[in-house]
C-alpha cells in the first residue's frame, strides 16, 4: 500500500474539518460532510448500545436454564436489541454516513439538494433515538422488534408507545435522507456525469432511497395505529371487535421486508467500489450491477409474505410470495457473479477494505442462500421461528452489511479524516470480526435446524455446546468491533497524513484533498470518462 512521504513544511490545507471550530459550527452546519460525521458518531453509539443487549442475550444463553433473568426481562433484551440495531443502526448506517459524505462528491455536486433538510434529518434521528433510549431506561419493551398485535396493541405491559414513537420519528429521518438523495441524483449531477457513468455506490444509494421513500410511511402509519390503539384502548387491530392480527403483519412487513434491502443495498454499493479499486479493474457488467440495485428495490416490495407462511395466511398467497422470494435472489446473485468476474484477472491487493469485501461476498452468499431455504415453503414450516432464521439474517446483516460498513469506513477513512489507520491492527481486527462472526452464527444454523426456537431464554440441554460456542464467538466479535473504534480515534491525532488518493482509486471524491474542502470542488468538474476507468490509469510502482 502506498505510503505518503510527509512533507515537513506541509501546512494543514483548509478543509471541512478545520475551516470552522466550535459546537455551533457543528450543530448548525449545512455541510453534508459534517452531517455525515455527526451521524457516524450517533450510529456508532447506538450500535454499541444494541451490542450490550446482544451480549446480555448471549450470556443468558450460556446455560440451558433461564437463570440469568426471567423470561419477561429476556423478551426485553431481544426486543431492544432488534429495535436499536434495525432502526437506529442498520437502516441509517451507510446512507446517512458514507452516502451523505460521498454521494454529492461522487456526482460532482457541492452538497445535497437540501442541506438544511439533511441537518433536520439528523436532529430527527436524535429525537427518535431519545425516545428509544427513554423506552429502555423506563423499563423496556417486550414485544419483539416486530411489534406483533394484539400483544403490542393490547396485552403488553411495557413501554410500547414510547418505543413506537421513537421508531416513527426515526422513520422520518430515513424518509428525508432518501428524498434528499433522489432529488440530488436527478438534479445535481455535474456535466458529463450521465446515469451510465455514476459510480455504483450512487446507484445503490439511489435504489435504497426509493425504498425508503415508498416503504417507510407504511410502517409509520402501522405503528401509529398501534400506538393509538394502546392510547384509546380500542383500535383496528383489536380482535374483540373483529380486528385481524394478520393485517398488522401484512402492513408491518410491507415495509420491513423492503427495509432489509435498505440495509443491504448500500453495502453492496460499497463492495462494488472496493472490488474495483483493489482489483485495479473496471466492474464487470456495469449495467447489470446498476440495474440489479433497482431490481432488488422493486422486487423487494413483492415478497413480504415469506415472513408469514405459518400465520394462517392463504396457501395461494404463500405460493405467490415463495415464488417471488426466489426471484428476488436473482439480482443479488448477479452482483456476486459480477464482483467475482471483476476480480478475475485483476491485480488484487489485500488491504483491509478488500479483506472486508472478501468477507462480505462469502458471508452474504451463505446468508442469501439460506434465505432461499426459508423461501421454500416446506423447509420454512420446519425452521421458521428457530435459530435458523436468526442465523440467516445475521449472516446477511452482520456478515454482509456490517462488514461492508467496516470495509467502507476503512476505505474512505483517509478521505474523511485525512489520516491513515494502522494497517496491521486493522487486518487483525478484520480477522477477529470474521472468525468471531462465524463462530457466533454458524452454530445457530445447526441449532435452528435441530429445533431450538428463537426468542426463548431457555433451551433443551443438548443444545448447550453449540450455544457456548456461539457466545464465545460473540466475545471475539465484540473485540473485533472495539479495536477499530480505538485506532480510528487514535489515527485522528497520531495517524500519518493520507494523501489525496492513497488507494489510487478512480472517482471524483479522490480528486480533492483529504480531508476535502468545505465546498468539495472549486469549480464544477466536467466528467469525460466512464466509471472505474482503471485500465487507463498510468501504472506506477509503489516503492
Amino acid at each position: 500500500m502506498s505510503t505518503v512521504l510527509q512533507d515537513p513544511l506541509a501546512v494543514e490545507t483548509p478543509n471541512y474539518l478545520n475551516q470552522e471550530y466550535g459546537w455551533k459550527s457543528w450543530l448548525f452546519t449545512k455541510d453534508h460532510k459534517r452531517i455525515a460525521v455527526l451521524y457516524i458518531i450517533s450510529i456508532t453509539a447506538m450500535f454499541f448500545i444494541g451490542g450490550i443487549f446482544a451480549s446480555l442475550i448471549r450470556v443468558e444463553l450460556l446455560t440451558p436454564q433461564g437463570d440469568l433473568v426471567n423470561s419477561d426481562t429476556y423478551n426485553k433484551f431481544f426486543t431492544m436489541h432488534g429495535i436499536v440495531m434495525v432502526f437506529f443502526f442498520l437502516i441509517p448506517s451507510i446512507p446517512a454516513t458514507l452516502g451523505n459524505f460521498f454521494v454529492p462528491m461522487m456526482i460532482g455536486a457541492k452538497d445535497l439538494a437540501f442541506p438544511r433538510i439533511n441537518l433536520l434529518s439528523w436532529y430527527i434521528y436524535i429525537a427518535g433515538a431519545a425516545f428509544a433510549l427513554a423506552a429502555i431506561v423506563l423499563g423496556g419493551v417486550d414485544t419483539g422488534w416486530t411489534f406483533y398485535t394484539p400483544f403490542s396493541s393490547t396485552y403488553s405491559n411495557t413501554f410500547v408507545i414510547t418505543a413506537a414513537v421513537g421508531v416513527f420519528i426515526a422513520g422520518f429521518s430515513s424518509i428525508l435522507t432518501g428524498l434528499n438523495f433522489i432529488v440530488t441524483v436527478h438534479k445535481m449531477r455535474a456535466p458529463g456525469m450521465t446515469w451510465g457513468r455514476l459510480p455504483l455506490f450512487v446507484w445503490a444509494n439511489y435504489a435504497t432511497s426509493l425504498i425508503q421513500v415508498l416503504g417507510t410511511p407504511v410502517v409509520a402509519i402501522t405503528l401509529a395505529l398501534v400506538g393509538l390503539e394502546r392510547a384509546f384502548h380500542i383500535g383496528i387491530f383489536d380482535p374483540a371487535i373483529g380486528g385481524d392480527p394478520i393485517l398488522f403483519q401484512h402492513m408491518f412487513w410491507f415495509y420491513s421486508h423492503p427495509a432489509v434491502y435498505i440495509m443491504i443495498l448500500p453495502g453492496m454499493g460499497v463492495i462494488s467500489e472496493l472490488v474495483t479499486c483493489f482489483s485495479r479493474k473496471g466492474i464487470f457488467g456495469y449495467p447489470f450491477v446498476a440495474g440489479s440495485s433497482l431490481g432488488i428495490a422493486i422486487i423487494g416490495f413483492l415478497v413480504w409474505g415469506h415472513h408469514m407462511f405459518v400465520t394462517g395466511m392463504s396457501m395461494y398467497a404463500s405460493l405467490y410470495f415463495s415464488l417471488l422470494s426466489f426471484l428476488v435472489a436473482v439480482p443479488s446473485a448477479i452482483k456476486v457473479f459480477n464482483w467475482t468476474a471483476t476480480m478475475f484477472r485483476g491485480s488484487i491487493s489485500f488491504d483491509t477494505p478488500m479483506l472486508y469485501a472478501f468477507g462480505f461476498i462469502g458471508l452474504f452468499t451463505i446468508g442469501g442462500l439460506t434465505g432461499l431455504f426459508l423461501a421454500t415453503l416446506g423447509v420454512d414450516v420446519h425452521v421458521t421461528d428457530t435459530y435458523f432464521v436468526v442465523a440467516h439474517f445475521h449472516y446477511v446483516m452482520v456478515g454482509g452489511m456490517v462488514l461492508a460498513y467496516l470495509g467502507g469506513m476503512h476505505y474512505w477513512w483517509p478521505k474523511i479524516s485525512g489520516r491513515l489507520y494502522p494497517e496491521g491492527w486493522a487486518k487483525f481486527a478484520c480477522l477477529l470480526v470474521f472468525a468471531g462472526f462465524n463462530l457466533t452464527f454458524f452454530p445457530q444454523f445447526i441449532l435452528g435446524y435441530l429445533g431450538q426456537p428463537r426468542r426463548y431464554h431457555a433451551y433443551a440441554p443438548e443444545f448447550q455446546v453449540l450455544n457456548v460456542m456461539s457466545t464465545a464467538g460473540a466475545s471475539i466479535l465484540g473485540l473485533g468491533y472495539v479495536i477499530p473504534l480505538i485506532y480510528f480515534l487514535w489515527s485522528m491525532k497520531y495517524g500519518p497524513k493520507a494523501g489525496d488518493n492513497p488507494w489510487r482509486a478512480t472517482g471524483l471524491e479522490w480528486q480533492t484533498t483529504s480531508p476535502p474542502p468545505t465546498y468539495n470542488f472549486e469549480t464544477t468538474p466536467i466528467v469525460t470518462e466512464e466509471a472505474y476507468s482503471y485500465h487507463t490509469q498510468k501504472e506506477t510502482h509503489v516503492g
Partner: protein
Amino acid sequence: MADTHSTVAEHSEPDHTAHSPHLRHHFDDMAQQFDSATLGMWVFLLTEIMFFGGMFGAYTVYRAMYPEAFASSSQYMNPLYGAMNTAVLIVSSLTMALAVRAARLGEQKVLQLFLILTMIFGLAFLVIKGFEYHEHWVDNKVPLFGGHWDYSEAPQFARQAQILFCFYFFMTGFHALHMVVGLGLMTTIFMMARRGTFSPSYFTPVEVSGLYWHFVDIVWIFLFPLLYLIGRTKKLI
C-alpha cells in the same frame, strides 16, 4: 477524469450581483433550484400517498371482511356535511391554484387575497369537521372513549362497526392534522408574500405549498365516498 485538484484557494466572497438573492449556493442557477424543490415536494407527496395509503389499504380489507357492518355505519354519517366539506376543499384548491398563478405573474395583492381565501376555506373545512365530530359525540358513536359508543339500533353490527368508526376518526383525524399543517404553511407563505418576497423569478415556496394543499384535497376526495356514501341505499338499521 477532469483534474479538479488545484491548490485550494480561499473561498472568495460570493458575488451576489449576478443572480437572484434567493439562489442557494450549492445550486448552479434558479432553474435547477426550482426543479429540485418541486421534485422534492413530489417525492414527499409520494411518502404521503403511502402513509394514507396504508390506512386506505387496511380500510379496504376490513370493508371486504365486514361489508354489511361497514355499510350500516354510513347511515350515521352526514353526507351533507361531507359534501359541503368536499365543495369547500375544491374551492380552496381553486383559490390556491389562482394564488400560485398570481405569484408567477408578480401580482402581489391578488396573491395575498387568494392566500387569505384559501386559508378561510381551509378553516371552514375544519369548523364543519368540528361540528361533525360533536354530533358523533352526542350520538354516542365515538368508540375511542369509553361510554360514548351506542349501536343499539343494529346490535348485530355493533362490534365490527367500531372498526369502521375507528377508521373514520383516525383517517379524518390524520387528514385534519395535515390541514392544520397546511394552514401553518399558508400563514408562512402569506407573511412572506406581505414582505414582497415573491416575484416571477422566485415563487418556489408558493408553488410547493400549493402542491401540498392540492394533495390534502385529493385525500379528502377519496375519503368522502368511502366513509360517507357507500351503502347509503340499504336500510340496514
